[in-house]
C-alpha cells in the first residue's frame, strides 16, 4: 500500500508544481481518499459476528495474561494456601480422603516418638534443640478446606494456576510464532525476490526441513537442546525449537507472494526511481504481502500453543519451576484416577476456549483480508 501512496503523491506533486498548471484551469478538487486494505478489512471483520466474538475472547485472554505477567492477578499462584487437593467451593461437602490422610500423617509425626534414649547417641541434646527451636517464631498458616476451583496436590489454587499456565503457554506460542514468521518472511522474501541461486539454495533448505517428519524434527531439536543446554534457559529453548522447525510453510507462502509481486509495475517503478533492493523488498513489497504474514502469525500461534502443551507434557517444554497448560495436564493424568478432575477441567477448558476462539478469529481474519478466497 505504501508504494501505491508514494506513487500517487509523487505524481500529484508533479501536477501541482507551480508553473505547470495551465492558467485558467481550476485545480481538481482533492479526491476523497479511498479506504486502504486495513480499513476495508476491519470493516469486513466488524460485520462478521463470529469473528468479532472470537476477537473479544482472544483479547480477553491477552489482557488476562498481561495482567498476570505484571503481577496484577494470579501473583501468588505458587503459594500453598489450601489443603491437598482442596475441593472446589461448589463441592464443599464432598469428602477429601487425600487431605485427611495427609492431616493424619502430620498428626502422627507430631505425637511423641518411641523412647530410644538409651540407644540414641543424640538423645542428650534433644532438649537443648527443642528449646532453641521454640525461640524461632513459626506462623502456622491456616489452610483453606476449599478453593474457588479446587486445589492441586500441594494445595495451590487451580484457577490461579490455569491463569499462570495460560500466560506461559500463550506467551510461548506468540513468541515462537513471531519468530517463525520473521524467519519465514525473511527467507521467503529473499528466495522470491532474488530468485536464481538464492532461491535454489533456500528451496534446498526447505526440502530438507520438510522431508523430515515434523514431530521428529521437533524432537531432534529438543534432544540436542536438552542434552547441551545451548538453547538457553526458561522458555527460550521451547520457543527456539518451535520457531526453528516451524518456518517452512510461511516461507513457501511468502516466497510465492514475492515472486508474484516482484514483476509488478509498482516494483519496477520503484526500481526506476532508484530504490535499492532492500527498500524494494521491505518498503515496497512487504506491506503488500503483510496480510499473508498476519494470517500465518495467527495460525501458527494456535498450532504452537498446542505443540507447547504436548511438549511440556512430555517434559521437553517449559522448565519444572514454571506452570503451563501442558504441565498442568501432566499432573492431571494421575489426579483423575483418584477423582480429582478440576485441574484437568481448568487447563483443558481454558485451552479449548482460547484455541477455538483463536482459530475462528484466524478464519475471519483471512476472509476479511482476502475476500477473494471466500
Amino acid at each position, binding site marked *: 500500500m505504501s508504494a501505491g501512496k508514494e506513487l500517487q503523491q509523487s505524481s500529484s506533486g508533479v501536477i501541482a508544481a507551480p508553473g505547470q498548471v495551465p492558467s485558467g484551469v481550476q485545480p481538481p478538487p482533492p479526491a476523497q481518499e479511498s479506504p486502504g486494505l486495513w480499513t476495508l478489512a476491519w470493516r469486513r471483520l466488524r460485520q462478521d459476528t463470529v469473528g468479532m466474538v472470537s476477537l473479544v475472547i482472544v483479547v480477553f485472554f491477552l489482557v488476562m495474561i498481561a495482567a498476570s505477567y505484571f503481577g496484577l492477578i494470579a501473583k501468588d499462584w505458587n503459594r500453598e494456601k489450601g489443603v491437598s487437593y482442596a475441593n472446589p467451593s461448589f463441592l464443599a461437602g464432598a469428602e477429601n480422603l487425600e487431605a485427611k490422610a495427609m492431616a493424619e500423617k502430620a498428626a502422627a509425626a507430631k505425637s511423641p516418638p518411641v523412647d530410644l534414649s538409651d540407644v540414641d547417641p543424640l538423645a542428650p541434646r534433644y532438649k537443648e534443640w527443642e528449646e532453641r527451636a521454640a525461640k524461632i517464631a513459626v506462623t502456622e498458616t491456616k489452610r483453606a478446606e476449599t478453593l474457588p476451583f479446587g486445589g492441586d496436590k500441594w494445595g495451590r489454587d487451580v484457577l490461579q494456576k490455569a491463569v499462570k499456565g495460560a500466560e506461559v503457554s500463550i506467551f510461548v506460542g506468540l513468541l515462537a510464532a513471531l519468530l517463525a514468521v520473521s524467519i519465514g518472511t525473511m527467507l521467503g522474501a529473499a528466495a522470491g525476490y532474488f530468485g536464481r541461486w538464492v532461491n535454489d539454495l533456500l528451496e*534446498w*533448505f526447505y*526440502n*530438507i*526441513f520438510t*522431508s*523430515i*517428519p515434523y*514431530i*521428529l*524434527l521437533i*524432537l*531432534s*531439536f*529438543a*534432544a*540436542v537442546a*536438552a*542434552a*547441551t543446554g*545451548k538453547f538457553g534457559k526458561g522458555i527460550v529453548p521451547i520457543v527456539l525449537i518451535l520457531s526453528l522447525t516451524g518456518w517452512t510453510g510461511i516461507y513457501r507462502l511468502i516466497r510465492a507472494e514475492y515472486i508474484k509481486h516482484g514483476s509488478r509495475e509498482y516494483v519496477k517503478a520503484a526500481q526506476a526511481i532508484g530504490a535499492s533492493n532492500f527498500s524494494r523488498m521491505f518498503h515496497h513489497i512487504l506491506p503488500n504481502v503483510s496480510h499473508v504474514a498476519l494470517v500465518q502469525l495467527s495460525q501458527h500461534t494456535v498450532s504452537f500453543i*498446542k505443540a507447547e*502443551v*504436548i511438549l511440556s*507434557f*512430555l*517434559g*521437553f517444554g517449559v522448565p519444572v519451576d514454571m506452570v503451563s*497448560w*501442558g504441565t498442568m*495436564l501432566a499432573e*492431571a*493424568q494421575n489426579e*483423575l*484416577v483418584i477423582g480429582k478432575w478440576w485441574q*484437568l477441567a481448568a487447563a*483443558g477448558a481454558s*485451552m*479449548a476456549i482460547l*484455541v*477455538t476462539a483463536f*482459530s*475462528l478469529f484466524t478464519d475471519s481474519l483471512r476472509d476479511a483480508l482476502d475476500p477473494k478466497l471466500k
Partner: protein
Amino acid sequence: MTAYVIRRLWQMIPTIAGVILLIFFLFNWVGGDPAQVLAGKISNPEQIANIRRQLGVDQPYWYQLLVFVKQVFTFDFGRSWSTNEEVSHILLTRVGPTLTIMVPVLIIETSLAVLFAIMVAYVRGSLTDRVIMIVCTTAMSISFLVYIIVFQWLFGFVLGWFPVQGWSESFVRNLTSYAPLPIMLAVAVGLAPELRLYRSFFLDEINQDYVRTARAKGLPEKAVMMKHVLRNAMIPILTNLGILLPGVFVGSFLLEVFFSIPGLGREIITAVNRSDFPVIKAVTVYLAILTMVVNLVVDVMYKFVDPRVSFK
C-alpha cells in the same frame, strides 16, 4: 515413466545429503560432546577421554561426517548409548507394534472421513452440515492430551472395557485386546480435521460442470457422487494421504507413551529423554528418506487415478 522415476530418484540425492548434513550439524556440531552426558556427573577426565575415543567424537568433524555417512548407507548405527542395544535391532523390533496401531488407524480414519465428508458435502449449507462443522472445529481445539487422559480413564479405568495399558507377544492378542482403545482414540481425534479437509475437496468438485452434465443425462445421485465426484476428489485426498503416510511409522508417540506400547514413537521419546543420539539420528534419517520415497510413490499413483496427468 521410468525416465521420470529415475530423474526423481536422482533429484533426491541433494535432499538426502542435506538431511544428513542437518542431522550431523545438529547432533555432532551443536550437540557437541556427549561424553559428559554419558559419563554422568561423577567421572574422571580419563573416563571421559575413553568414552570420547569409543564414540569417535575426538576425531575431526570431516572424519565424523564420513563415519555418519557410512552408518547411513550400511544401516549400522552402532549401539544405543544408554542400553547398548544395536540401533538397527531397536528400529526393527519397534516398528511392529507401531504399525499394529497405525495401519488400522489410517484405514479406518480415511474411509470414515471420506464417507462422512461426501455425505456432509452433499447436504452442504444445511443445518446438519453446519452442526457437524461446528462440532469438528470444537473437537479440534481440545488438546489430544485431554482426549487420551479422559478416554483412558473412562474406558480403561472406570468402565474396564479395555486394559488401561499393556502389550503382549502375541499379535492377535495385541490387536484384539490392547490395540482397540488407542486405535479408537486416534481415529476419534484424527477424524475431525480430515473430515473438514475432505469436505472442502468434495465441495470444490461438486460445483463443477461435469457434475451438472452427469445429472442432466439422468444418472442417479449415487452414481454422480460415488463415481464422478469421488474419483475427481481422489487426487487431493491422495496427496493428503501421502503427507500422513510417513507419520504411520513414527506412530502417535503420545498414544504409545500413554498405553505403554513398545513402538518407535515411545522409543524416540525415551531416546530424547536419555540423550541417546544414535537412535534419534537413525530414526530421523531413515524416516526422511522414507518420506521422499512415499512422495514419489504418491506422484506416480496420480497417473493411475487421473489419466490426464503426464510425467514431464
